[in-house]
């Protein structure tokens, strides 16, 4: 899986407030060949009864992935580029530990196939120097894949944050969320 064409200058930036719920990313995600034509991105209303707010979630590719740690079958691995890969199909036993333990609610369990699947940042594309499918089609740039310079120019009043606090637990990720200028972290349960 060592690919010299993987451009480590390129990063993923998410801004959920820009998500318009169009589902274009969901359709594009299903085109990713590493997913076997299954859409892995999550897009849904946050609280439909009181708001029209939608949210979009890709795998955050944690520095110390909880999913890989709780996997009893050693099926989830992180490569040298920081990409946390979807479950190794020969090892995954479909136990759902990763589905329930991921703090971002990312992995999906394919029940009949007894297999966990998740976003691996379109590894077939990113390892060849291309952008992930979802980021290429997002019309509002809620999902953006580019360099840090590009995002700074595009969003001068925002700062990319990759540190998340869930109670006492600090989770650092490869993927960034765009926050108000000067932010350093996002506390999920204030």
């Amino acid at each position, binding site marked *: *899986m060592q*690919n010299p064409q993987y451009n480590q200058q390129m990063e993923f930036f998410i*801004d*959920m*407030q*820009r998500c318009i719920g169009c589902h274009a990313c969901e359709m594009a995600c299903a085109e*990713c*060949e*590493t997913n*076997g034509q299954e859409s892995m991105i*999550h897009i*849904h209303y*946050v*609280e439909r009864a009181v708001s029209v*707010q939608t*949210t979009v*979630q890709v795998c955050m590719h944690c520095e110390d992935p*909880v999913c890989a*740690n*709780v*996997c*009893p*079958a*050693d099926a989830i691995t992180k490569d040298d580029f920081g990409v946390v890969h979807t479950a190794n199909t*020969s*090892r995954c*036993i*479909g*136990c759902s*530990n990763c589905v*329930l*333990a991921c*703090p*971002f*609610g990312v*992995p999906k369990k394919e029940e*009949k*196939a*007894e*297999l966990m699947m998740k976003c*691996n940042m379109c*590894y*077939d594309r990113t390892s060849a120097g291309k952008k992930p499918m979802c980021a290429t089609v997002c019309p509002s740039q809620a999902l953006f894949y580019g360099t840090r310079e590009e995002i700074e120019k595009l*969003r*001068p009043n*925002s700062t990319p944050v990759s540190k*998340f606090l*869930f*109670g*006492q*637990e600090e989770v650092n990720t490869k993927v960034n*969320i765009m*926050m*108000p200028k000067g*932010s350093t972290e*996002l*506390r*999920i*349960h*204030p």
Partner: protein
Amino acid sequence: MLRLLQTLNRIALIKAIIAALAVVILVFLGSRNLQNFDAALIAYLLGTVFAVFGIAYRYSVWLQRPPTRLYWKRSMQFLFSRDFPFYLLRSVKLFFQNILFQRFIYHRSRTRWIGHFLLATGCLIAFAVTIPLTLGWIHFEFKPGNDTIYFAKVFGFEAGSFELGSFIAFMAFHALVWCSLLVTIGAVMMMKRRLTDGGLIATQTFEGDWLPLVLLIAISITGLGISYDYTFLQGKTYQFMAVTHAVTVILFLVWIPFGKFFHIFQRLAQLGANLYRHEGKKHGMAVCPHTHEEFATQLHVNDLKQVTKELGFDFTLKDGSNHLDLSPEGKRAALAKAHFEVRKNAGAFFG
């Protein structure tokens, strides 16, 4: 060397030595003090004993990991509970369904299932034939005073007979030929996937994905070579065929604990995961505080809180609840709401 020994896991090492010794003892018992042991298979025997040692070592290390240990503990607890007959039957059913027929692969892709089923069936039948032969547990003899009836002895006890030249004899003596054909067809089908599927091309590795297939084909072809040699070449190339086959098989045996083939043994954990899910449902489901819907068994959620803590993650919140009490959708919504609040407090949703 001493440093290498010090890095070994002591518990696993003891278990692996016991497993390897048990095989050696069973060789003596099964072959009636080596009376029925085929000395020509000594290299295969050494490879098998090493494979048993390695598999037991890795399995033991693997079971020491907190999530695996928990599944193992729970599976045994449920299996040997008062519902033992029920869970035993369920395990047998799942063994046929998931291990022998690998039904779950059918839901991943039909062609892939056909390829894997052929390959796995060939391997499993070949194991069932060769391991007892290698360990001296099975051997064939002529019936005393009769040179046309052949009978099989298992652990030195008679276990059926057949006439030479009969259909059964033909099938039995060519069992490994049929296995080789199944494995070769299956492995070629799996190779085709790896040559044409863009996702696999991007993520596969030579040692993890290609080498196992190449090795299986090499074992099959060299094995067929032995049959070809005695059927059509009057044994003229026997030495070459036998040595190349032995080399590939022993490489396979020695590599089982380290490479992709270890998944054959890991797959059994799928049965445990299934029992765990079934038993968990009896104890009640967890309801997500955000979606107000059931999303997993409460047993699973509680166990995961414990396992994550053991692994150094603590998702306990200020009010004593836990982030893991939320369903995956609830967690995503919590993140979105927190982001919304921060943006709102900053006075601008975009920027």
